């Protein structure tokens, strides 16, 4: 029967939100296959994690070993390849996260499991697994069918399957660690915390976010002035940091900061989901982009389709007028 497995993702002693989204997605799939949902938990003395998972799945499978205190894809692959080969779930779900991206593309071919990444929606009907993914800078969705096989592996985008509390009572099963040591070819050494900069953008009510549309480092000063007029600070997208136009602590998004200001003004930002993940909690979002099809407009409250370099001075003037 179509059993569904979902891998619990945790880091530095905390279960990551994606886990509950995976479990929500898993419950939905299990209702389609008539199978049950198992949360697969690899961790070091993970009792506290088990408690928070009990109501979420039909079973929690626990592999308790110091080897799984931190995530190392090599250790996880060693353990999971054995678990999945013996249990043979129909679908295994993991997050399309730094963790899933490092593990799944190698785990899947090692078990000859059809696999695809970053799914926004999934369906199973007549033994056929289909997924919706995004391509071309988020401008098109693709519906794909996976090659038919007994078992599938899929990674799920964050924020697509709302977590809920179904009030289940999971059976807890334990499995001895299938591996005895961390592989020598890949060893986890330590975490390195992000560098703290001069301004904490997460504390500001107004953030002017600037993207690659700013074109040149020399144009940052103009954006700084504009942000000042609004009483806010400047944040940015990843390419702006990559180009060394602004420091890393200004980056908003999944691999940067999560901000929830009252106002976020996005200038020359296309609206990649990794960026949206960091700012969609803003109360009001204004986007200025010359491309009317930019995905940012689907997230913003107000949009202007124009050249940011024409809008910035005009808007700055009006704001200074209103401030008197």
């Amino acid at each position, binding site marked *: 029967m179509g059993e569904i497995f979902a891998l619990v993702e945790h880091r530095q002693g905390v279960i*990551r939100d994606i886990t509950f989204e995976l479990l929500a997605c898993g419950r939905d799939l299990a209702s389609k296959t008539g199978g049950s949902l198992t949360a697969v938990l690899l961790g070091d003395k993970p009792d506290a994690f088990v408690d928070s998972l009990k109501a979420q799945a039909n079973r929690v499978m626990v592999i308790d070993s110091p080897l799984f205190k931190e995530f190392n894809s090599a250790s996880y692959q060693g353990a999971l390849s054995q678990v999945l080969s013996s249990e043979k779930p129909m679908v295994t779900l993991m997050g399309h*996260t*730094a*963790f899933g*991206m*490092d593990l*799944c593309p190698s785990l*899947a*071919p090692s078990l000859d499991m059809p696999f*695809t*990444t970053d799914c926004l929606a999934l369906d199973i009907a007549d033994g056929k697994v289909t997924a919706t*993914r995004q*391509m*071309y*800078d988020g*401008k*098109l*969705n693709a*519906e*794909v*069918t*996976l*090659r038919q096989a007994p078992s599938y592996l899929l990674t799920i985008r964050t924020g697509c399957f709302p977590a809920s509390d179904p009030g289940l009572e999971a059976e807890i099963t334990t499995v001895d660690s299938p591996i005895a040591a961390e592989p020598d*070819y*890949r*060893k986890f050494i330590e*975490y390195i*915390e*992000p560098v703290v900069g001069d301004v904490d953008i997460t504390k500001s009510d107004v953030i002017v976010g600037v993207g*690659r549309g700013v074109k040149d480092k020399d144009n940052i000063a103009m954006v700084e002035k504009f942000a000042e007029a*609004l*009483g806010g600070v400047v944040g940015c997208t990843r*390419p702006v*940091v990559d180009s*060394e136009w602004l420091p890393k602590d200004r980056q908003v998004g999944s*691999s940067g900061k999560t901000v929830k200001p*009252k*106002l976020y003004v996005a200038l020359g930002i*296309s609206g990649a989901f990794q960026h949206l993940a960091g700012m969609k909690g803003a109360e*009001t*979002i204004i986007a200025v982009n*010359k*491309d009317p*099809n930019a*995905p940012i407009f*689907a*997230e913003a*409250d*107000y*949009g*202007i*389709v124009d050249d940011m370099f*024409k*809008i910035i001075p*005009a*808007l700055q*003037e*009006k*704001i200074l007028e209103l*401030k008197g």
Partner: protein
Amino acid sequence: MNIIVCIKRVPQTAEAEVKVDSSGKDIERERLTFDMNEYDTFALEEAVLFKEKFGGTVTAMSVGREDAQDTLRIALAKGADSAVRIKAEDFDEIDAIKTAQLLKAALKDIGYDIIFCGSIATDDAYSQVGVALAQLLGIPHATLVTQIEADQGRAQVHRELEGGLLEHLDMALPAVIAVQSGISVPRYASLIAIRKAAKKEIKTIGSDEIAADDLRADIVIDKLFPPPVTKMAEILTGDPSEVSEKLSKIIKDKGLI
């Protein structure tokens, strides 16, 4: 050191309109410009930095149609020593896993100490090929790499996790290193280097050298369509002064100034 870098030619879609073609399964390519996948520009830079530090050669490899040669020539101009194209036109349904299988097949006669990839190709957005290739070759990997230092067959690698957190790994080489953007600042090619690269031969490998029967794709695309619009910004229209007038009022009404 034998250094490999995997490079994909992709349409530049961040600022362009992307239309579905009449098959419903592919995009219209005519009005789009194509260039090296951005993440691969970082992989190439890292490969060339490795060559400069450790000596050896850089081989750029691409699974692509004939025009992928233009992109491989850019790689040659930026410091790759040789280039190999695997003829995509010889194979159907090339998804990420099949790309990895083709790269593996093409690497059969090429030695490697390290293989650089990007962490994602911006067209298909699989984030899969480099890590899958490592598995097929039976060597370790790391993706989302923001720093790597190699010494005596091992590498100290920093991987980027969410929220700007990094992890430090100690890895054995050879390995596949799939780099995150920003790992370095890619160089420009000089005019002389571009001219020289134009004359270099690019090796091509096709289905006559790679048996297609054991190649297997994981997915087929059934259809492409614009993402459904669930929410849309209220678009303010007018000249810059008019829209600014409207916007500043909205900002004021919300008590933000």
